């Protein structure tokens, strides 16, 4: 794939984009890279504080509830559902971008709508989880859970949990808004008139990034 020093293709000789990418899409990539550092800083500070503590609450004992299941002990079940919702909505976004390549307006509308539904479902799950924890007296500055070794836990656990999942949830929310705007624009034929569906690709990059971040949030808060 070393095409940079090819006599037929002088990528850096002017007249063509060196990265063969449209400006807006390239800038979306760089924005996502900077956003990755923001999330990285959050998650790493969480790791630092957790490692500096002698003990920490057990995520499986904290996140063990499921809607309509009463007090049944179901560790990891609800967050698995959330994870799968996000993975599937990422797949439908891939299909929407693909239909965009083929200039298939109906296909883009169909898959984009499914992606929005997936995003809303995820936000609904997160709202339920936050409400449930709030009723257990967990919030910023308030931690009702014990450490795994039985010692009293500091509020670091809930502070980091609500800050980081909240920041991610805000990304999901803005992603859903962006996708809704894209759906309306597709509906009105803006991209057909423009002759390309590159905006769908850029919205898709953002949406996949939200899924990518969740993979790490899931790891940091629920699995380890």
């Amino acid at each position, binding site marked *: 794939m070393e*095409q940079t020093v090819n006599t037929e293709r002088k990528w850096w000789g002017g007249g*063509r984009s060196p990265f063969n990418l449209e400006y807006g899409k390239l800038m979306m990539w760089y924005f996502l890279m900077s956003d990755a550092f923001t999330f990285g800083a959050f998650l790493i500070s969480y*790791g630092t504080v957790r490692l500096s503590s002698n003990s920490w609450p057990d995520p499986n004992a904290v996140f063990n509830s499921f809607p309509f299941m009463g007090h049944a002990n179901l560790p990891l079940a609800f967050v698995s559902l959330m994870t799968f919702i996000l993975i599937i909505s990422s797949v439908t976004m*891939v299909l929407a971008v*693909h239909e965009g390549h083929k200039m298939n307006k109906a296909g883009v509308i169909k898959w984009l709508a499914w992606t929005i539904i997936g995003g809303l479902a995820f936000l609904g799950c997160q709202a339920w989880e936050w409400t449930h924890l709030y009723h257990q007296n967990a919030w910023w500055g308030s931690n009702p859970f014990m*450490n795994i070794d039985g010692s*009293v836990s500091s*509020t670091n656990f809930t502070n980091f949990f609500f800050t980081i999942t909240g920041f991610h949830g805000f990304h999901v929310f803005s992603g859903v808004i962006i996708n809704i705007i894209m759906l309306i624009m597709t509906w009105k034929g803006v991209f057909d008139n423009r002759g390309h569906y590159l905006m769908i690709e850029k919205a898709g990059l953002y949406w996949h990034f939200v899924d990518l971040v969740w993979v790490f949030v899931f*790891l940091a808060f629920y699995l380890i």
Partner: protein
Amino acid sequence: MEHNPVSSEVTFVHHVSDADFKKKVRKTTILLSVITVIELAIGLIIYNMHKGEHPSEFLITLFKGVVCILTLAKAFYIVSVFMHLGDELRNMIMTIVVPLLLFVWFIGAFLWDGGSYRNLRNSYDPHHVERTAPSKDAHKAAGHHTEAQKPGVAN
């Protein structure tokens, strides 16, 4: 080579057929789901080990390490297939991936720092050690939210 309507400076190379693309997406979806299921299984194993009498610290750390590696594999597939970074020019991939290498230092340095702070406090701050010691009547499974328990003081 077809010309992109955006600008003549950008040329798309789409030599993937529709069927091949769908197959790749399906394969990646199944892969991500299977990895997630394995992660969940390991998570439940860790949960049950903690419930046991003498959980092996080594095994738990090992399982957690495996989950971290599986997560990195998931991240790789999302970025390279779903976000199509794998299909871009090599120079473009490098401008994204090389700056992210800072994370190697970032994670290593800060986690080390956290561990060091913990050791220093345990060595030189008797009050901290006393405050974070498990209480005698609390060897039942952690996580029970005791309503009477005052929320802990921030460190």
